[in-house]
């Protein structure tokens, strides 16, 4: 498959760009923050109208079936304006899990609701502060055809917006063993579940969940308990690749804004952009960003094509983009200098969102380690 957007995908990019620039420029994030809000339900409705909430969901279940390259295009544009939404959690990661292992009834009802943006799902996976998809101590004990959950989850993305959590819990084995995990649908208002949220630097809220004997009915079990490893792994790869796509938008936009600033701003009587030391740093960053573009597109194609190298390509993409994005936002603030440090100026928002997105679905360290492991060393 050619490593290039086809015509349909280019049109999607154009429409995504103009929608998001208009309905959710960076100023929208500032307004949300200043009024103590995390997201805009109006933006979410707009996204649903654009079809984005179902962009990766099969047509049979009300989606556009545009694939994950399409999802990445949308998220990259969201990254450029730092638009907050539960697209990644709900429409991409959770939807992929439901599609992969949900039964027909679940798919019919839940995928359609996700595709329409009527409900928001999120994955409740990690229990520590660093991304670690295997260390699961939350237990699910069978009781007849129901299950009883006990334990806790931390830093659940979009934890304040989600109506329903897909909870990963342990049926058997130690906290570290990879097998023995089940997936359970738990509504926000279920008895025994308490949810608190934390405001993060990027003005998004993550959830901290406590399960005290939370009873899950038989029809809220997704897939076959203990045998969802492949689907979960794929969903997490989708999360990481799309998080790389969003981060690429963040990094690319900070770079372009910085470049414009350097050209405008004068020091010592000349444009700052004429200083060779800054030129070389900008050129180096440009090269890294070009590599990132190739990585992200390839990783998303690998998901769409179910490539055997999917995980390697995804870890490459997330590691590379995380490293580059960190460089990009650091250079952006440093090159904006004093004004870049002020809250009044927008560039700091990019730095904050970059730090958060770098960690979502595994940071640079997680993915470069996994890349090496998959490479046999």
């Amino acid at each position: 498959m050619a490593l290039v957007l086809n015509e349909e995908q280019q049109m999607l990019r154009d429409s995504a760009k103009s929608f998001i620039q208009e309905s959710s420029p960076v100023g929208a994030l500032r307004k949300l923050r200043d009024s103590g809000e995390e997201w805009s339900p109006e933006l979410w409705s707009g996204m649903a109208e654009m079809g984005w909430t179902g962009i990766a969901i099969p047509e049979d279940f009300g989606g556009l079936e545009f694939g994950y390259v399409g999802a990445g295009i949308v998220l990259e544009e969201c990254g450029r304006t730092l638009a907050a939404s539960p697209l990644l959690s709900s429409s991409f990661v959770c939807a992929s899990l439901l599609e992969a292992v949900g039964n027909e009834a679940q798919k019919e009802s839940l995928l359609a609701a996700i595709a329409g943006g009527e409900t928001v799902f999120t994955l409740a996976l990690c229990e520590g502060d660093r991304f670690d998809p295997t260390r699961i101590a939350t237990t699910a004990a069978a009781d007849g055809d129901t299950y009883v959950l006990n334990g806790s989850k931390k830093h659940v993305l979009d934890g304040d917006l989600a109506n329903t959590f897909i909870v990963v819990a342990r049926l058997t084995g130690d906290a570290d063993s990879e097998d023995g995990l089940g997936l359970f649908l738990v509504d926000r208002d279920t008895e025994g579940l308490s949810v608190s949220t934390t405001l993060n630097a990027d003005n998004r809220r993550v959830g901290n969940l406590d399960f005290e004997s939370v009873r899950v009915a038989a029809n809220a079990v997704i897939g076959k308990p203990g045998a969802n490893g492949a689907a979960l792994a794929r969903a997490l790869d989708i999360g990481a690749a799309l998080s790389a796509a969003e981060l690429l938008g963040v990094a690319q936009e900070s770079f372009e804004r910085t470049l414009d600033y350097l050209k405008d701003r004068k020091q010592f009587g000349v444009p700052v952009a004429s200083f060779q030391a800054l030129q070389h740093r900008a050129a180096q960053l440009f090269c890294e960003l070009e590599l990132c573009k190739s990585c992200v597109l390839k990783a998303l194609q690998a998901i769409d094509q179910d490539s055997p190298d999917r995980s390697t390509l995804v870890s490459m993409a997330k590691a590379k983009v995380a490293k580059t994005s960190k460089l990009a936002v650091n250079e952006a603030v440093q090159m904006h200098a004093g004004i870049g440090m002020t809250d009044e100026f927008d560039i700091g928002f990019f730095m904050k969102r970059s730090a958060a997105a770098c960690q979502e679905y595994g940071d640079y360290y997680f993915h470069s380690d996994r890349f090496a492991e998959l490479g046999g060393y």
Partner: protein
Amino acid sequence: MPNLEEFRQQTRAWLEESCPASMRNPINSDKDQCWGGRNWVFESDEQRLWLECMAERGWTAPQWPKEYGGGGLSREEAKILKQEMARITARRPLESFGIDMLGPALLKFASEEQKQRYIPEIIRGEIRWCQGYSEPNAGSDLASLQMRAEDKGDHYLVNGSKVWTSYADKSDWIFCLVRTDFDAPKHKGISFLLFDMTSPGVSTNPIKLISGKSPFCETVCENVKVPKENLVGELNKGWDIAKYLLTHEREMIGGFGLSRAGTKTLGQMAVSAIGVADGRLAERGIRTDIADFEIDEMAFALTIERVVDEAKAGQGTGAASSLLKLYGTELNKDRNELLMSIGGSEALAWESEGGETQAQHWLRSKGNSIEGGTSEIQLNIIAKRILGMPG
């Protein structure tokens, strides 16, 4: 030297007697640091008492001349005082830009009358000073400053704006670079002026940073009348004073890289946060980066030590301040990036009950390599002044 030992014993006894118990507690909030000045509200009688009895001996500025109210101590005695204060974890009685910045410049450049007027107030913490160098749109090109002080016969008329004036909203007086010759080449028309912040026409505006609230302000002057006697040094020679002050400031900011000495090392913090596998930090990529950082941190600390020892031994190059500013601030940024990685998702939290969050420290650290002369400016200085590269 027996008299040094005697000085130590006397100092120890005096401190034991004079330093109130609560002034030996760690700093927990902003109010615990006493800045003095007209409007300071002491958080306790003990805070006031501690300032007064230290100021009386001139020990808020231990090495300044006795004639202006300073401590008149030798370098060795001042070091002993510092050690003895550290021994009982005594707080600094007074935080002051007057002591840390303005005072040394006044002692070097001011007239006798000016010294007698301003220095005792500084030592006693009666007047709180702020600094007015940077201006909107000037940035690294400090000498392009535009704040005008026009000669109106009996006074200067000051118009223009300053940014990054720390605590301007809380300060009593400002020391300020202003343009007094509007036709001269830019470095040559600058003068060094002092004025009262309550003068009509002065207003301040706090600046919010990406890390949240900050002590920085924008300070605007509209037709502010400043007595001519408030000029320090020669007219249009203010740039020399500025350079002297900036070198001083660079050394202070460079020290950031080490400001957490005595606390846990990054490696130990990582072990607590991440855990150990096969006898090593469980996350090996971070382990490598931490080792790199700690090696640099230790090498930097040793370099400060070496610079000081070389200066003492008369071997110094005298050009170290740019190196220390550059490296120290970049190290502090690295440190904070690593702390963000070590902390993982937890480090992203924006709100906390106990002071600033890690995320706020991290964002604030980005300013280290900008304030007091950007890293790029330091690299230029090193290349040109130390390495003798042309252009």
